[in-house]
């Protein structure tokens, strides 16, 4: 049997599902070994996924279309999941805490499951509007932003679930990192995501200017990305307004991610506009 990219990528769905379950067990039962297993599974899934994406790129060249696998909903979901895992693994390596995995791996799993079971995975040729090098710059930067926001959302949920640190490390929720650390991580991931979203919006504007002659046309997808940007700008400034620490920022990280989801899917399915080819 031959390993097609879609085969490899559907396999990834199950590896990430397994990793998410292991992270959950690690967090709830506090077994260090299971945590290590979860990390190993995530690395394995990431390796398979990377090969799957590379293979899909090669396959598109064999078909004579030759383009980076970032052009339709299936490919963008796969890429979203890939970047989310990348950003997560970086944070895990940096802070050496695995409980966050239980809130990050599910995002990667959902995204892959939706890609594999809910969308058309045929390799399609690029329509004229997408034939630009800006496609890669735009999609990569936007998705780095989206992935950071997904993780900020996971961290925000953890923050809201967790009781005061003073209660000590009791119960299931006690195993989560301290609130102060969570708060700082939410802030850092939002900063990181905000930078990439800004660059994503800018590369999108440069591309639109090249393709259509307007860098900004208030099309629903553009407008929603700006709305998302406003939400996170609020989160960054809210820190300087008294009483807006902790909980409120955690809420904003969730509202912001809802806005990201809407920018990503809602616009394609519910509204019409220049970007709706994404729903093919």
């Amino acid at each position, binding site marked *: 049997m031959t390993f097609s990219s879609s085969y490899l990528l559907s396999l990834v769905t199950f590896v990430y599902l397994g990793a998410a379950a292991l992270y959950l067990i690690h967090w709830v039962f506090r077994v260090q070994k299971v945590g290590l297993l979860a990390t190993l599974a995530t690395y394995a899934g990431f390796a398979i996924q990377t090969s799957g994406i590379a293979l899909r790129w090669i396959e598109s060249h064999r078909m004579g279309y030759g383009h980076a696998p970032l052009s339709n909903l299936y490919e963008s979901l796969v890429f979203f999941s890939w970047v989310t895992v990348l950003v997560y693994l970086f944070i895990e390596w940096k802070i050496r805490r695995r409980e966050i995995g239980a809130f990050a791996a599910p995002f990667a799993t959902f995204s892959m499951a939706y890609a594999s079971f809910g969308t058309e995975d045929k390799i*399609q040729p690029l*329509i*004229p509007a997408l034939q630009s090098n800006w496609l890669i710059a735009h999609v990569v930067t936007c998705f780095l932003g989206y992935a950071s926001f997904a993780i900020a959302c996971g961290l925000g949920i953890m923050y809201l679930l967790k009781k005061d640190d003073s209660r000590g490390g009791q119960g299931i929720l006690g195993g989560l990192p301290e609130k102060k650390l969570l708060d700082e991580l939410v802030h850092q991931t939002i900063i990181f995501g905000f*930078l990439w979203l800004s660059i994503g919006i800018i590369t999108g504007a440069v591309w639109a200017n090249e393709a259509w*002659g307007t860098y900004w046309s*208030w099309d629903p997808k553009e*407008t929603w990305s700006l709305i998302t940007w406003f*939400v996170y700008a609020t989160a960054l400034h809210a820190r300087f307004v008294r009483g807006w620490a902790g909980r409120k920022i955690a809420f904003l990280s969730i509202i912001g991610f809802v806005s990201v989801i809407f920018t990503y899917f809602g616009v394609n399915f519910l509204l019409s506009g220049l970007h709706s080819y994404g729903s093919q």
Partner: protein
Amino acid sequence: MKPSSSKNTNPVWAFFSSVRLAVFLLITLAVTSIAGTIIPQGQPLDFYKDQFSHTFFQIIRVLQLNDMYHAWWYLGLLGLFSLNLIVCTVKRLPFTLRLLRKDNLSLTSHRLRKMPFRHEWKTRGKVDASAIKPLLEAGKTRLPESQVDGGRLFLAEKGKWSHWGLYILHSSILVIFAGALTGSFAGFKGNIMLLEGESTDHIVDASRSKQIPLGFSIRCDKFSVSFYDTGAPREFKSDLAVLEGGNEVLKKSIVVNDPLEYKGISFYQSSYQAVPQVTVRFHRKDGTREDIVLSAFQRISWPAARLTLGLMQYLPSFNGVPAARIWLADSEGKTRALWLLKGNEKIYTQDDEQFSISLIGASQSYMTGLQVKKDPGVWIVWLGCTLLIFGFGIVFWVPHQTKWLWIGEKDGNTIVILAGQTNKNKIHFEKEFHKTEQAIESVLGVK
């Protein structure tokens, strides 16, 4: 660094300079912007009258929700936001200037002992300042120095300028606004449709439906479209020529994502339309004949017969036969429409002359749709975007780090104090500080 309450307590000033207002405006902009993504934008008012209830239509009309991103209240919010940003920046400026002017060489040893990072050594022997001073900042031997408390104070400071990062970041937003304003006042946007072979020296403005002269002519020589084997379009291409005083000065084939630019005006491939073309044969009584090619959307005049002609409709198969409906106007402006079926002749009389007209062929040509724009503000917008990214990078990743080294004497002992502070990335600074500490320790030979 957070500027605390200012001496200026004017409530209006306080209101416009508050981050609270900025947060309020950001939330308001986020929430109101949603409306324009749900209500279709830029349609004629009648459209909304049909689609929505009377009350809702009135709301749309008053709040200009049909073009809400250019509505007075939305622009007002953006204006207030800019004002907030300017006032906030002006208020902050004195704090930053004071911070930058602060003389870091006049600190007392007492102050150094209170720095967030510090270490102190005491030794009996003499200390050679020139041996430990380079350890402060990667082998730099010439450091600013002063005499304080009867000892020598050395200073190594990095990234002081990074305090301007926030100003760069915030002003970048204003620069982008300025670019957008320049574009909307000094630029234009519109569309043209050109048949193959046709040229124009003006366009019709998209919003104000007025004519704008280009100052030169643009001609479409050829349009082509190609498809993938899946049936999806592969490429739309127009071969364009720029004419000045009838002479070709520039030729370029444009595709989507690769426009033509001439004298600050850009032409983008935006759409196309297939245009039917028919050949009509006119037989005169005296046996002479003339073949005329008619395209949709085009008038052809035929002076010899004092006729103007046009193609109104073309059917490739009318009961199996190609059919065309053509339109004729005589010199007095009287018009007639005729259906021609291939293989059938029609008799047409004008003045005393009689023609028999027949449809002899049909083909297809194209009309290319070009988006035309001039935007002298676009470079300002790109400048603003660049500043935004740079400013962001500086605000979050360039720290202002200061290290001090004081060498003095007390009760016959030599005292060495190393102190430091940073405004961001404390963890990284701590490591670096610790390294300096160890390096000094190994030179001094004491703990």
